[in-house]
């Protein structure tokens, strides 16, 4: 068995597969080399597939609009990364760059999907889990990069709908808003007043009116 086959068989994704299936996967796998600091792929680009570190280390991170970075994973030999878009079909949720001179295997998305394609229920489950993991990644991003005002502005933007429209109007107490953006009620009260002072919302008794969504976006 070649070293690549042995390496693939040692990975959690493939350890239970027959040798002939691994051999078929191996034919599709690309071996890629990267210099230290070189970018493998960018956040929001279409996903090429699942990456596995053969040698070196890969930094997977998200970047704020101001350029601040939040590392999500330092992938070591044997670690896979970019799993989420392989299974939910979305874009890359983060950027990956080589921390050291590195060699990675790229297993194309189609090859990975083919492993579960004959079991629609399994495919549906992994797609659901991948979507949830993507959502949690965005929660980490929000908590890392946004202030409470920014997180509350994003929540209001995400939830606000027109009255009498097709979607029901969402109703939240300040405690519920606090729980959703990772803070406490008193801070939410102050943040709401700040957002109102800046003209993005108007609070009329029990209604928070999003009157200037553009201003809310500027607060993100």
């Amino acid at each position, binding site marked *: 068995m070649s070293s690549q086959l042995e390496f693939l068989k040692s990975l959690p994704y493939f350890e239970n597969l027959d040798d002939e299936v691994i051999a078929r996967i191996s034919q599709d796998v690309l071996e890629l080399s990267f210099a230290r600091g070189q970018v493998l792929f960018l956040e929001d680009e279409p996903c090429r597939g699942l990456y596995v570190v053969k040698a070196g280390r890969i930094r997977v991170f998200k970047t704020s609009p101001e350029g601040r970075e939040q590392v999500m994973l330092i992938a070591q030999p044997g670690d896979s990364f970019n799993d989420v878009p392989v299974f939910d079909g979305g874009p890359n949720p983060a950027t990956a760059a080589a921390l050291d001179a590195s060699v990675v295997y790229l297993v194309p998305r189609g090859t990975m999907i083919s492993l579960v394609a004959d079991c629609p229920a399994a495919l549906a489950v992994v797609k659901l889990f991948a979507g949830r993991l993507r959502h949690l990644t965005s929660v980490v991003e929000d908590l890392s990069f946004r202030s409470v005002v920014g997180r509350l502005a994003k929540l209001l933007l995400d939830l606000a709908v027109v009255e009498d429209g097709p979607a029901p109007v969402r109703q939240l107490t300040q405690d519920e808003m606090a729980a959703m953006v990772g803070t406490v009620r008193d801070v939410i009260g102050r943040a709401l007043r700040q957002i109102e002072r800046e003209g993005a919302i108007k609070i009329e008794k029990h209604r928070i009116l999003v009157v200037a969504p*553009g201003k809310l976006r500027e607060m993100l």
Partner: protein
Amino acid sequence: MITGIPVIDPEACDACGSCVEWCPTGAVGIVDGKAVIVSPRDCYYCTDCEKVCPAGAVKCPFSIVLVQNKPEGNTEKPE
């Protein structure tokens, strides 16, 4: 259904009177051993009653409403 006044759960309310004490407009009272909004017109939804209720019996939910037909300056089209 949101009516613009705090929602009080009579099952959870133990009539401790905190909301009555804190309400700045006297809109809340104790009736038959339970807190109720006795003067809805005086309530301006400050949400203090929700904040001080130790039993979590008072809820002040906000409807989050997108207002259309309000152009923001001349730079953004109505959404």
